[in-house]
């Protein structure tokens, strides 16, 4: 979570880092929709390869990518525990009193491939831009103002709450607090969480007031405009035709 807030992946100088965020958003959107609706194994394995390929282009550290995939796959693991045993279909193996169905396994496998492909493409295409660039890009793509602002402030205040947490945590640590299994610890953590919420609420109020004082009337105006380069067009076209190619696979 903290790594996401810190936008660790957005620093770099690969092709994908310098690609126009508008192109990245469009490609990521197309790709996700394609993967989500496709039922063909050929298209999906192609999509997974495509996603791995784009991640390879970013030059990000494999270890960090795997740790992010791990978070998602821990949820998918739960599906593997459930689906094969509960999904109705042809019985292929009996484990005690439990039947493992072929359809169940097929289904779990599809979900695994789909979600990993989408996450990988998200890492490659979206996390290589800073949140602010993505928000600008969304605005340039005529996304509704309310949605982009919601996105912006969610990010901005996740950061604020995190920094309030660090401050408070430091404040309790320097006075010799050690987490133990006792009432004092529980109470301290309850105070910490409560204080964190109150303080971040207050801060968000003050930030909003400061924005009002500078003439904010509910609409963001952007300073920097993206320059659409020829290379953006070429890279975008290659990726989009790749996606279309995947759809057309037998």
């Amino acid at each position, binding site marked *: 979570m903290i790594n996401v807030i810190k936008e660790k992946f957005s620093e770099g100088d690969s092709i994908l880092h310098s690609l126009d965020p508008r192109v990245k958003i469009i490609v990521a959107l197309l790709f996700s929709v394609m993967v989500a609706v496709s039922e063909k194994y050929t298209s999906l394995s192609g999509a997974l390869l495509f996603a791995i390929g784009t991640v390879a282009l970013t030059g990000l550290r494999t270890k960090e990518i795997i740790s992010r995939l791990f978070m998602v796959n821990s949820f998918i693991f739960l599906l593997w525990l459930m689906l094969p045993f509960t999904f109705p279909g042809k019985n292929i193996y009996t484990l005690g009193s439990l039947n493992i169905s072929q359809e169940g396994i097929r289904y779990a496998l599809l979900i695994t491939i789909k979600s990993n492909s989408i996450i990988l493409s998200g890492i490659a295409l979206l996390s290589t831009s*800073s949140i*602010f660039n993505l928000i600008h890009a969304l605005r340039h793509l005529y996304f509704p103002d309310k949605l982009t602002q919601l996105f912006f402030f969610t990010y*901005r205040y996740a*950061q604020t709450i995190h920094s309030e947490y660090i401050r408070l945590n430091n404040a309790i640590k320097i006075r010799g607090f050690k987490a133990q299994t006792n009432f004092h610890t529980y109470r301290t953590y309850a105070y910490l969480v409560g204080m964190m919420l109150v303080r971040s609420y207050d*801060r968000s109020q*003050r*930030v909003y*007031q*400061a*924005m*009002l*004082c*500078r*003439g*904010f*009337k509910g609409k963001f*105006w*952007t*300073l*920097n*405009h993206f320059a659409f380069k020829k290379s953006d067009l070429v890279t975008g076209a290659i990726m989009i035709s790749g996606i279309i190619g995947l759809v057309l696979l037998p």
Partner: protein
Amino acid sequence: MKKRENEAVIKMADLSFAYPSRDYVFKKLNFNFFQGERIGLVGSNGSGKTTLFHLMMGLLHPAEGKIEIFGKERKTENDFIEVRERIGLVFQDPDDQLFSPTVAEDIAFGPLNLRKNQKETQKILKETLEALSLSGFENRITYNLSYGEKRLVSLATVWAMQPEVLLLDEPTIWLDEETIAKIVQILNSQPHLSYIIISHDKQFLKKTTDSIYLLNKGKIDRTLFL
């Protein structure tokens, strides 16, 4: 130097204000501020200095009394929109003020809200950075700035709106002498600017203001002692 009362830019008459479940901060407070004045506002902690600024900007609303700014009575949120475009308040904590990723974007936020076009905004940006000797800071990330830099940038964000009156809330607190000297020089470089400065720093007020007002027990008065 007697001025007629109706010339006041900011006129507060019989103002009372209290925070919920606390005693009155102000009771029947009267205060007039004129164009061209450079005043310091002193008073003990909790005497209501910041509250007074927030009332002027419409962030808080009085229980009783009248606020007249630029010759018009200001009551509702809509009345204060014009006030906020013409009076600039710099918050005490720069972390409250700065919210954009880069210095340039944060400074441009105000001018863009005033519907300046790209060209004008870029010009204002450049001039503001020069005036506050922050040139070269354009693409710095705001939350990675040092505290002193944050203070100067938050002044810049308000400066860029070219306000007629500047309200500064403790502009020197926790700053080193060098940065304070810089702020003194910035303020004195604009002889036509009007401002009110809340500060406990007597040396600083002596260098930047012409008169001092003391806020004490809900009343505000001009004072000779510093």
